[in-house]
Each structure stands twice: as structure tokens, then as C-alpha cells.
């Protein structure tokens, strides 16, 4: 048996297929096709949670995504503990384990419920007021405690073992919502042959046809028709049907985000299926068929477990075969609750009484209820509910006052009317309009190519809905390019229709200020809170919302917005449209981080770029460092070596014999065209026109403001062809910078730029033996100093493959950079390595590269410069063409501040104690005895232990640095002040003789 409240022959589930599940450790049996909510209700369980602020016991309000109360934690295993799952949405599977939230030590006895008694402290805006004194306590006591108490559920504490996927899709017509309206629209569009996507958040299509027993379409029961319609749509090639898929966000130009819950409903999802799939859909036309959400009645203690929306009770009965009680009261201001009472009565459930706030309503459902012998009370209100963990009674009073009567019940169904779901329409930036007659906001002015149909458009009645939706679907198809339509409109044979209902607080909600008549269940906002917000001076509904938290957070005011607005309007004495509606925010319902991240985790978090030579370095045991997306060999430790020992050895070996370095990550751009030199003149500070083919030059690139942007060695391969190198990190932005100027400022130049960073693997061979290592492998290039002097480039072959061989140095030693096509990179490296072994060469990494260049005072853009350093500041005036009349940055460089005295200039620093290595970033002062805060005159940009110099070395930006040569400055550190001497930037081989050594 799947629960004492399961009604035989009611609902659509097969009683034969049972599923075991647990809630708070207690075992229950449900049926396949149940939600966790229907399965618990079938077992008579209404108490499922504690409210956010007051920790009041709560049960199910709804049967769908609007559920504000029944938020539970679903626990699959140690790593899969999902909080805040709506029990009304979670489908049951065998073995499902759920726990209630926000209670301690147990759901029925919750210590936090003391908040309910202390509620005067927690009135509207309490966090702005109650905890204001003493001021210091906010940070140390109040905020941490509030944060601890706030929030629902417990975040999982292990990495998510599931995977998530994503899919981009395009369609002509996107239909959101799969009730009668959505299905009719989808059919009309699909029959024309255009591409249609139809999505619905439920496991089964049909929307409110799930509970509307009175609906007949094409001669069938409404829900049966819906299943036939979806089967027809699914079979069509031009239609994609997505169930369990929520459209959570409507963005610009008909771009809609949807999440498909792929495997949360499965007992054992396995590893192949993603948990969720993010759909990002671009549609030519969107049809919104998101339906309407029923509102509750606002009266005292309207949150007791067992009190729920009438439509929800009908869904539980007509779809799941579950009675929500045995002795049910009904409190309503519109007809739809009568249908629920009638269905329950016919299923054998006692209806204690219908209490109708309206004076003398008439209509077929009222007649039918009366005919079934149900007691009906017009013009009366339920002023409060009795019971605590479960409703036990309702107290009824004539709405204008008078004698009270208490009726025993175990459930109350309520309906204040239906609110069109304009969330997605509002997200699309559409403006809603208030219909004064029906007292509801409906889509008014559209901002995008979309159309609303059915209940979300304020259209009442199934017949009118299907007519409207079918026509809108056909029109959307036509607008998106459909030629022909050949379908037939579904025919509505019978339908239900409801009148309007009421907004705001009913008599049971005060004006007494001690009762709790809830407007927003999820945020624990009462009618009193909203009145208080107005009394305290809030005039805009946006302020009322923020002050009270009504309609905020994950709930987004699905059930509460209209009541809150009406109470505020009444208190303000203004009509509703003048008070206005708050803006609906995405997401419509919460979206997991997993779905948003989808594939972008682990190896797909970000591309990890590796050079062609990477496998060799890895095999040698290199330690890698991240440089942007690149992995670069940092140093090559040998057995027993730490980083310092390895770097010291590498540094010495390069200067003694030679070293091999993988420089493949350097940005490389081929600049080609008859105006190539003219272009280079404009982008770099240096002169290029006279650089002969076969020669190289160190180039500096500035931004328009005159500060150094990038640098690198440029080789001229031919009069119309340059091989430009950039820093590793600068490669993409330098390319963009050049392309930007070429297209916008210099479009008259005949020159083109091509990134060749990855075409060429680059092997730097540096050191006195470098030529001896390379020469035996090279064909067709004269390697003599006369034929191939420092700063030259030749094209030829190495190991039989094409090479661009640069003679250049970033170490101060004789050096070469061997460019070979990337697929040959590792093999050529291995050949050079084998030659190098004959001479005692070493492989070295980026750390050694940094030390060696610092020994020579070569700067690294981005380390020794920070975007505020001019060529002059960096001591690079020699690289600025004095006769040039134009280049990017030439005017910026001449600005008064950039030529003023006292600018920070790049200099060398030597610590008085040669063993002390400064910290990079350390601040420099003139007088360490000053009062704190001291006047800082500069900072250390580069600092290393130099084994070659036998001492520490550093570069620093110091105000007026070049005028302080030989001066003593101070670097205050936590452990004492370090004395330093200002020096030139070259620490090793000042004459530069080793370039040809």
C-alpha cells in the first residue's frame, strides 16, 4: 500500500509500481510517477519544513514550482546532498532519501521556533534596526549569528561528482510552457514545418489539464489529449520537445536560458547522463504559455501544515490519487476552489464547509457543490486557523463582524484567484499593464519578438485559450518564415472557467497587529509587515519589497507579489497601478551552479596550453609554472636539488657552457605587405625603414598615453616581411592592438598581420658554446660572426627542416633562437640536446631565464613596468627614434607629467649585505627613522640571488633614481630595515663582450 491517503481508482499513477523512500529517516512507500510531495501526502505527512525566520512548522502550499515551504534536502550519497529542493517538483525514485531543513533538533520540536515568540524583534526591516547597538557588535556578534541562522539548507561540502552539459540551439518558434495553450501554439507552428522547441518544467505535459477534470478537447479528456498532442509533436522532425525543462531567464534578442533536469528523477543515473543540461536557445519568435499561479488567502495562521492551494489539492487528487485530508475545509474568493471541493467530495472525502468571502456568487460549480450536499457559507471569512504542527480547525466569522464559529478540519483549501505568470515576459523587458476589471497585471507593451497566450496573458477559459494560442503559434511560424499551414485547430468540447477572486488581506489578517497572516511564506512576510513598511515611510513598492523582503530570493513573489502590492496600495490609499509592480528577476526558479558552469570544470575549466617541447620537459622532471594559459618549464631539478640549487646550477651552466630554453610561448606575428615597415614605424618607438633584411632590432611598443605596452625582438625577413615577437602574456593583446590601429587609424597601409605564435616552436640556445651546439645541425646558413652577427636572422634548415634562425640574446651571452615548425619542435630540441650534451649544456627554465636577464638589466614588461612607465623611466631612451615624427604614444610621451623631474626611474639595487635577497614589491624609503606612514619613494620590481655575481641583485623603480647612483636607501621590512645601494642596472659583464664570447 502506498499510503493511507491514496484513493483507489483516483489519479493516473499505476498502483502496482511502488517506490520506497525515506523522509527524516522514516521509511515510506510511494508510487512511480509521484513527486516527493504527493508520496508524503499519500502517507498523511504534511509537516515537512520550518520557515525561514520564525521557524514555524510548514507543509505543502502547492503542487508545483511555486512551492515556498516544502524545501528539502535530497541526499543521494556523501557528495550529493542537494539543499532547497522543492518536494513538489522532485520526482520520486526508489530509494530516495530526503531530509527536512531549518530545524534543530527535530522537525516537530525545533528550538529555533522561539523566534516565533520573539517575533516583535523580527518585524519588517528588523536587520536594519534591532541589531544597531552597540555598533561594534554588528561585525563580531550580530552579523555572524544572523548569517548562521539565515539561509536554508546545508551546502554540500564535497566536490560535485556529477557532470553537467550544455547545448546551444536555434529555432524559429520557442514555446515556453506545455499546457493546453503551449501545446496548441506548438502544434500550429510545427504543422507549418518551421523549427519548434517546446519546453515545460513538468515531467509530463498538460499543465493544468493535470487537474481540470472538466476539460475535453477533440473528444478526449484534456490530459489524454495533451499526451496525444505531445506524442505527435515528438514524432515530428522539426520539433524538439523538452520536458523537465525550466526556462529560467529571458535575455536580449530572444535568447532564452533553460535548464533540463536530465537525471534527478532516476534511481541510478549512472555516469553517462549529465545531471542537468543547460540549453541556450536563440529563437526567431517566442510564445510564452507559462500559465497562472493560484493565490492563497491571507488570514491568521494561514501557514499551518494542511492549508494549501485548492488547485494543488486537486492536482494531488486527480493526478496522483491522493487526498490531502479526510475532513477538508475550503476558504475561497473565487470558483476554482469549488471544483476542488467537488472532486474531493466525489472521491469520498468529507468537505466540512466552503467559506466564500463573496456575498452571493452564482454559477454551475456552486450549484453542483450544493447538490452534493456541501455546506456553503457566503459573505464569511476564515479569520484564523487552529492547530500547530497540522491545522485542526478553522474559525469562521461574517466578513463584517459578528459571531465566531469554529469548525474542525484536517486540511484547508484556499483560493484567492489566479495570478498570470508574467515572470518571463517581465524579464524580456516587456511592460505589464493592470487590468482594473480583472484586477491583474497582464502583458502590455512588448520589448521583444514574443507573444503571450492563455492564462499568462489573462485569457480565461480553455476554448478562448486554445483559439488564442493556436492563432499565435501559426502567426509566430509565419513571422519566422513559414510558407504554408496545413493543420487543424484542436476543438474544445468542454472547459472550466473561473471568475476573478480577490487581492490583499482578508478579514482574518488584522488590522490586529499580533496575528501572523502570511503574504510571503518563503520569506516569512506577514500582512502586518507590509502595513508597517508603509507606516515607516516606504512609498515605492520596490522599497516595500526590500524592507520586508516580500517577493525576494528564490521565490520571486510567485504567490505573494499581488497580495503584498494590494496591501501596500490599500495602506497607502492609492490604486494598485499607481503603486506599481516590482521587476521580476532571473532565474525564475533556482539554477544550480553546475548547470551554469556545465562543461567548464576540471580540464575544461580553461584551456591549458602546452608547447611542442612540453613532453620532453615533463619527462625530464621539470617543474612547471602557469604563465597565462601556458604551462612553462620553471626549472629542471636534478636528484636532491631544491629550486634554489637547480636555478643556481642552471644559471652558472648557461654562462659557463650553454643552456637550452623553450621559448615557444613568445608571441609571434608575421607582418607582411609593401607598407610593413611604415606600419612598424607607427606601432613601435624605434626606426624600422632602414633596418636591413636579415637584421633584428629590439622594439618597444607604447600605448597612446606614452607608457610601455610591450617589447620584443623583431627580425626583418624581407623588405615587406617582419617576424615580430611579443611577450608571452602580451601576445593576444598586442595582436589586437596592432589590428585595431591598422583597421581604424592606418587603413591606408597595405599590410596584413598573421599570428604565427603556434606555427613556430622556439628553442633558445644561449651561452659561449651555443654556436658549437647549433652549427653541426644547420644547413645553408653561414654561422660566422661576420655573416651572422649579433641581432640578425637567417632562413635555412636545421636537422633538415626549415628554420628561422635568430642570433639574439636575452642572457647577455652569445645566443640563438631556433624557430622550427611546431611539429618538429621536440625532435629538433632532442637533436640540439644531444649536441649540447657534448659540451655540458643544461636545460633551463623560466626562473633561470629571469635571473640571467636581470643580471644584464634586461627588463620584463609587466614585471619591471606596470603601465605607468615610459621608455625614459625604464632607461630605454636609446630605443626611441629621435628623428621620428609619429608613432603611437609619441604625443602621450611628451605630456608635462611624463617629462617632469622626479619620476620613478628603473635602477639597480645592491643590498649592503650581499646575502640578503629583497622581496619583490618591497617599498623603498629615504629615511627609515621617519614617522609611519613613511614617504615611499619607490619599490623593488625584480629581485634574485645571482650565483654568477655571488650576491643578491635587484631592479627597482625609484623616484629620481638615476640621480641617486651610489646613494644609500632603505627597505623597511617586518624583521628590520634593509640597507641598499643604488646602482646601474647591469650587474654582469657591463661591457657586453660576452655577446660575442
Amino acid at each position: 500500500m502506498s499510503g493511507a491517503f491514496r484513493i483507489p481508482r483516483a489519479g493516473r499513477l499505476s498502483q502496482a509500481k511502488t517506490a520506497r523512500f525515506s523522509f527524516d529517516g522514516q521509511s515510506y512507500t510511494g508510487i512511480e510517477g509521484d513527486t516527493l510531495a504527493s508520496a508524503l501526502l499519500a502517507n498523511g505527512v504534511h509537516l515537512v519544513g520550518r520557515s525561514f525566520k520564525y521557524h514555524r512548522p510548514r507543509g505543502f502550499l502547492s503542487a508545483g514550482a511555486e512551492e515556498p515551504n516544502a524545501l528539502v534536502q535530497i541526499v543521494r550519497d556523501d557528495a550529493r546532498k542537494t539543499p532547497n529542493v522543492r518536494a513538489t517538483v522532485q520526482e520520486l525514485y526508489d530509494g530516495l532519501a530526503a531530509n527536512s531543513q531549518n530545524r534543530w533538533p527535530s522537525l516537530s520540536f525545533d528550538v529555533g521556533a522561539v523566534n516565533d515568540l520573539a517575533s516583535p524583534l523580527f518585524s519588517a526591516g528588523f536587520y536594519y534596526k534591532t541589531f544597531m547597538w552597540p555598533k561594534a557588535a554588528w561585525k563580531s556578534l550580530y552579523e555572524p549569528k544572523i548569517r548562521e541562522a539565515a539561509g536554508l539548507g546545508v551546502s554540500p561540502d564535497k566536490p560535485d561528482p556529477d557532470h553537467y552539459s550544455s547545448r546551444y540551439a536555434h529555432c524559429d518558434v520557442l514555446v515556453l510552457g506545455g499546457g493546453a495553450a503551449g501545446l496548441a501554439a506548438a502544434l500550429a507552428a510545427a504543422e507549418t514545418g518551421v523549427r519548434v522547441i517546446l519546453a515545460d518544467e513538468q515531467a509530463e505535459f498538460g499543465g493544468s489539464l493535470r487537474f481540470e477534470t472538466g476539460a475535453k478537447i477533440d473528444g478526449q479528456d484534456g490530459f489524454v489529449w495533451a499526451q496525444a498532442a505531445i506524442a505527435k509533436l515528438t514524432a515530428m522532425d522539426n520539433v524538439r520537445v523538452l520536458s523537465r525543462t525550466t526556462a529560467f531567464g529571458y535575455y536580449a534578442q530572444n535568447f532564452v536560458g533553460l535548464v533540463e533536469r536530465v537525471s534527478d528523477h532516476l534511481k541510478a543515473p549512472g555516469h553517462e547522463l549529465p545531471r542537468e543540461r543547460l540549453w541556450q536557445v536563440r529563437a526567431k519568435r517566442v510564445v510564452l504559455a507559462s500559465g497562472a499561479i493560484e493565490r492563497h488567502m491571507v488570514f491568521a495562521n494561514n501557514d499551518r501544515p494542511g492549508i494549501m492551494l485548492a488547485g494543488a489539492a486537486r492536482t494531488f487528487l486527480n493526478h496522483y490519487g491522493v487526498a490531502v485530508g479526510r475532513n477538508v475545509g475550503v476558504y475561497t474568493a473565487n470558483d476554482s476552489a469549488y471544483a476542488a471541493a467537488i472532486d474531493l467530495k466525489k472521491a469520498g472525502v468529507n468537505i466540512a464547509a466552503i467559506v466564500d468571502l463573496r456575498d452571493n456568487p452564482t454559477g454551475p460549480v456552486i450549484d453542483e457543490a450544493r447538490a452534493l450536499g456541501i455546506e456553503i457559507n457566503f459573505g464569511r471569512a476564515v479569520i484564523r486557523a487552529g492547530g500547530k504542527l497540522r491545522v485542526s480547525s478553522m474559525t469562521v466569522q461574517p466578513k463584517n463582524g459578528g459571531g465566531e464559529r469554529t469548525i474542525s478540519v484536517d486540511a484547508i483549501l484556499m483560493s484567492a484567484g489566479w495570478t498570470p505568470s508574467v515572470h518571463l515576459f517581465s524579464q524580456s523587458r516587456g511592460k505589464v499593464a493592470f487590468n482594473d476589471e480583472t484586477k491583474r497585471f497582464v502583458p502590455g507593451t512588448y520589448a521583444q519578438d514574443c507573444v503571450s497566450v492563455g492564462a499568462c496573458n489573462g485569457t480565461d477559459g480553455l476554448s478562448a485559450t486554445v483559439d488564442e494560442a493556436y492563432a499565435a503559434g501559426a502567426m509566430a511560424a509565419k513571422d519566422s518564415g513559414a510558407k504554408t499551414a496545413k493543420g487543424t485547430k484542436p476543438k474544445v468540447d468542454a472547459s472550466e472557467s473561473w471568475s476573478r477572486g480577490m487581492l490583499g488581506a482578508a478579514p482574518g489578517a488584522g488590522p490586529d497587529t499580533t496575528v501572523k497572516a502570511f503574504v510571503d511564506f518563503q520569506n516569512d512576510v506577514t500582512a502586518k509587515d507590509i502595513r508597517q513598511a508603509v507606516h515607516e515611510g516606504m512609498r515605492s513598492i520596490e522599497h516595500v519589497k526590500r524592507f520586508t523582503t516580500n517577493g525576494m530570493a528564490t521565490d520571486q513573489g510567485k504567490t505573494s507579489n499581488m497580495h503584498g502590492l494590494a496591501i501596500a496600495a490599500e495602506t497607502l490609499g492609492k490604486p494598485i497601478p499607481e503603486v506599481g509592480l516590482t521587476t521580476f528577476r532571473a532565474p525564475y526558479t533556482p539554477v544550480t551552479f553546475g548547470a551554469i558552469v556545465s562543461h567548464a570544470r576540471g580540464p575544461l575549466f580553461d584551456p591549458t596550453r602546452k608547447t611542442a617541447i612540453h613532453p620532453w620537459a615533463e619527462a625530464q622532471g621539470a617543474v612547471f609554472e602557469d604563465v597565462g594559459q601556458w604551462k612553462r618549464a620553471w626549472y629542471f631539478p636534478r636528484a636532491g636539488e631544491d629550486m634554489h640549487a637547480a636555478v643556481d646550477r642552471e644559471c652558472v651552466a648557461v654562462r659557463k657552457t650553454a643552456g637550452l630554453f623553450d621559448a615557444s610561448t613568445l608571441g609571434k606575428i608575421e607582418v607582411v605587405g609593401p607598407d610593413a615597415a611604415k606600419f612598424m614605424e607607427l606601432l613601435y618607438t624605434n626606426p624600422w625603414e632602414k633596418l636591413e633584411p636579415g637584421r633584428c632590432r629590439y622594439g618597444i611598443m607604447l600605448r597612446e598615453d606614452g607608457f610601455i605596452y610591450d617589447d620584443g625582438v623583431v627580425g626583418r625577413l624581407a623588405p615587406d616581411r617582419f617576424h615580430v615577437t611579443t611577450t608571452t602574456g602580451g601576445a593576444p593583446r598586442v595582436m589586437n592592438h596592432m589590428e585595431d590601429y591598422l583597421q581604424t587609424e592606418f587603413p591606408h597601409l597595405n599590410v596584413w598581420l598573421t599570428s604565427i605564435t603556434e606555427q613556430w616552436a622556439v628553442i633558445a640556445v644561449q651561452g659561449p658554446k651555443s654556436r658549437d651546439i647549433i652549427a653541426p645541425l644547420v644547413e645553408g646558413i653561414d654561422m660566422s660572426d661576420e655573416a651572422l652577427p649579433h641581432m640578425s636572422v637567417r632562413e635555412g634548415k636545421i636537422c633538415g627542416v626549415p628554420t628561422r634562425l635568430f642570433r639574439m640574446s636575452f642572457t647577455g651571452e652569445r645566443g640563438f633562437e631556433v624557430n622550427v615548425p611546431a611539429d618538429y619542435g621536440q625532435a629538433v630540441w632532442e637533436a640540439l640536446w644531444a649536441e649540447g650534451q657534448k659540451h655540458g649544456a643544461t636545460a633551463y627554465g623560466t626562473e633561470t631565464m629571469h635571473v640571467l636577464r636581470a643580471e644584464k638589466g634586461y627588463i620584463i614588461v609587466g614585471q619591471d613596468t606596470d603601465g605607468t612607465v615610459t621608455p625614459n623611466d625604464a632607461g630605454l631612451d636609446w630605443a626611441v627614434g629621435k628623428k621620428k615624427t609619429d608613432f603611437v604614444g609619441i604625443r602621450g610621451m611628451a605630456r608635462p607629467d611624463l617629462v617632469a623631474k622626479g619620476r620613478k626611474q628603473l635602477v639597480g639595487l645592491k643590498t649592503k649585505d650581499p646575502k640578503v635577497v629583497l622581496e619583490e614589491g618591497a617599498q623603498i624609503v629615504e629615511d627609515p627613522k621617519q614617522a609611519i606612514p613613511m614617504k615611499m619613494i619607490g619599490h623593488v620590481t625584480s629581485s634574485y640571488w645571482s650565483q654568477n655575481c655571488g650576491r643578491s641583485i635587484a631592479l627597482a623603480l625609484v623616484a629620481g633614481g638615476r640621480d641617486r647612483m651610489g646613494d644609500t636607501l632603505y627597505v623597511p621590512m617586518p624583521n628590520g630595515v634593509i640597507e641598499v645601494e643604488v646602482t646601474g642596472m647591469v650587474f654582469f659583464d657591463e661591457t657586453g663582450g660576452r655577446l660575442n664570447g
Partner: protein
Amino acid sequence: MAKAAAKKTAAAASPSVDRRPALAGRTTTATGVKVEVLPPAERISLRAPEASVAALSKALGLTLPKKPKTSASKGGRTALWLGPDEWLVIDEGGNDPLADCATVAALHSAVGISHRNIAISVTGPAAEAAINSGCPQDLSLDAFPAGAASRTILGKAEIVLLRTSNDAFRVECWRSFSDYVFTFLSEGARDAAG
């Protein structure tokens, strides 16, 4: 004859080192889709003004396409339109388009990028869905028919996409992004199969 033979011998004698393409031989299959790394090919990035297109077309032996999102293919050589003055020319027949362009006097820039790019083929009825896991373009046959080409993105990487037939795509990316792109396509293939 003798001359040709001598040339062939010389070519065989060098290089003395082996070529090691990235991801060589890597392949993965899922229901309805196969992802595999393609062998090396000759490639150039070709830039030229309108006036040079005829001369370059002649030299390359195919008509350079002038319409966005199109390509032209002949004798194992394909030219993909990437921009108003930009083409990616891929030669899978062992001929060198760089050498062909070198004979053209008309204004242009041809830069060899054979090693910069690698190609991954994605084939099968689910190929389109696999690529749409990370590529936001409309890949329906109407919008992106066989022969369509586009420089676009896959996840966080830039790719050039060419539809070689209704059920087959060629994905070109830069060498160091190939592991990311291949892995992404494998994930996409796994999901497209489901």
C-alpha cells in the same frame, strides 16, 4: 625523369628528425558521433584585396570564395572565407599553397601556418549536436550547409569550423588549444549521444 627522381631522393633524405603532430591518432566515439584527429595538412593564412583575388584564385587552382560563411574546394585543396580579405587555405593533397602564392605578383600576404593549426573531424548524425555543446552558431543544414565555414568559438577556444558534408565537420584550432578542443568535443559527443 632523372631530375624528378633526384628531387624525390633529396626529399626522402631530409629531414633527419621526425614530425610529431599534436594529439596524433587520438580518437573517441560515442553513439552517432566520432571525433578524431586528422593528419597534418598544408595551410596558409591568405590576405588580399579584392583586386588580387582573380590572380590568387588562378595560382591556387580554385576560386576563392567571396561570400561570408562559404568555402571552395578542388583537388584536395579548400579555401575558407574568414573575412572580406581573409582566407584559410588547407591542402590535404600534399601540395604547397604557399609556393603557389609565391608566384603571384598581385598584392597579398601569404603566411604558412601548417603547424599552427590542427584539425579534428567530427562525424556522424550527432556531430552537429556535439559541436553545439560549445559553439553558439546555428548549425542546421539551412543555416550551415555542407561547404559552410566560419571562424567561431567552442567553449573558451577559437575554432574554424567547416562542414564537409551533411554529417561531417572539420574543426581547426591552434595547436596548444587542441587538447582542450578535443576534450570539449569528446564531452559534447558523449552528451549528444545521450
